[in-house]
């Protein structure tokens, strides 16, 4: 069991800044995120797109914002538990015990949920029959490409994952790439390579088609695709790879007994605590009258929630407001020599 002052759920910009606000108050945190890297939506959805409304930063990309936040919290040497997801929460002796998918267990007086709109999960093929082939013939990520050696593989999608795997697997498999429109959003460089291979007969590309049925028994035998004019094509295949992007699922947090407002968690605006003492929700996932889903709002919410976390984690100490500019204590925590 990992004991800490605060468990932070979500390593997006708000979760990262929470580490800072807790850290300057002398509190330790552990961060859990379902993605394989920190940054949340900023890194997953718009790493290269500009953001114009971070105070005092006229323009930065999602990636730059994430990198700067990581730099800002470096002094606190926080542990990140990536590729993991919070599952259950229970209360033991006034401490919250959090269990994750990977069976890690945390104990802390405080949990701050900075989970955005939930954890990112791959969007799956919507056909009912796809479920029984999932993990056997249908995959939404590739862990071992050798599985596909010498096999027929159909790849769906128009982004970088679809294009990269099409190119990679075309070296060892018989690949058909299928996308719902002519335009691909993946890198033009990769697309050009794919088009050359298509001309040379090394792989097949079908655009303006979508999957309409799956045929098979124990294993997939073929799939049928259909275009907007209802024209269908049957393609024999051994495997199907779907790269339809990610969707956000709130997941088990919805079952924690917190007061919810649609997919968001209701909080008070004094310290962003939920209906359960010691569980806070900040950033896009919280709701209160007048809530705006801005990164800067999340930063403010982090600052206020961290004060209440201090009071709960250090009941015998008095909370004292301090500026980073003038507090020797904070500067030491930041690893700076007081000036």
């Amino acid at each position: 069991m990992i004991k800490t002052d605060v468990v932070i759920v979500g390593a997006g910009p708000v979760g990262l800044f929470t580490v800072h606000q807790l850290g300057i108050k002398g509190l330790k945190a552990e961060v859990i995120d379902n993605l394989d890297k920190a940054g949340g939506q900023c890194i997953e959805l718009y790493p290269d797109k500009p953001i114009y409304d971070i105070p005092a930063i006229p323009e930065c990309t999602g990636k730059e914002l994430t990198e700067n936040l990581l730099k800002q919290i470096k002094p606190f040497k926080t542990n990140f538990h990536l590729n993991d997801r919070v599952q259950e929460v229970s209360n033991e002796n006034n401490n919250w015990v959090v269990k994750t998918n990977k069976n890690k267990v945390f104990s802390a007086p405080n949990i701050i949920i900075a989970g955005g709109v939930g954890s990112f999960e791959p969007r799956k093929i919507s056909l009912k029959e796809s479920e029984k082939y999932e993990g056997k013939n249908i995959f939404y990520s590739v862990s071992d490409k050798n599985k596909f050696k010498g096999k027929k593989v159909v790849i769906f999608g128009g982004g970088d994952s679809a294009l990269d795997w099409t190119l990679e697997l075309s070296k060892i498999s018989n690949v058909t790439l299928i996308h719902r429109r002519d335009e691909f959003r993946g890198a033009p460089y990769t697309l050009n390579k794919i088009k050359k291979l298509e001309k040379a007969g090394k792989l097949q590309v079908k655009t303006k088609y979508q999957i309409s049925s799956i045929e098979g028994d124990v294993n997939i035998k073929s799939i049928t695709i259909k275009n907007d004019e209802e024209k269908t094509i049957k393609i024999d295949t051994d495997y199907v790879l779907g790269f339809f992007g990610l969707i956000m699922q709130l997941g088990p947090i919805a079952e924690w007994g917190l007061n919810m407002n649609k997919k968001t968690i209701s909080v008070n605006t004094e310290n962003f605590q939920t209906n359960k003492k010691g569980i806070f929700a900040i950033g896009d996932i919280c709701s209160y009258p007048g809530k705006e889903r801005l990164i800067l709002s999340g930063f403010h919410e982090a600052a206020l929630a961290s004060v209440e976390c201090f009071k709960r984690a250090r009941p015998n100490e008095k909370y004292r407001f301090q500026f980073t500019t003038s507090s020797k204590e904070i500067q030491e925590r930041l690893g700076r020599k007081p000036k």
Partner: protein
Amino acid sequence: MSKITYIDSSGNSKTIDVANGLSVMEGAIQNNIPGIDADCGGGMACATCHVYVKEEWLNKLDKPEDAEQDMIDMAFEPKKNSRLSCQLIVSDKLDGLIVTTPSKQT
């Protein structure tokens, strides 16, 4: 005000007066129209306000930006007439618009 009709996947229809300047998504959220989630709040960063626009309206709307099309790639069962309702801003031009919501968003 413009009249926007939202039809759910089983055919139930609701017509709402939506103030010009709001998006078709906001019109739905503010009036508790089910079938539109709008997880990202209108930022074109998800595809959970996905709707199908009635065919005769398709050409009357401004063409979607590339970024919207990119997002629609990630929507549940996208079709030729798929749009993100957060990108459809209500104006007199849209008075009478009919959209159908997909059977689910995620």
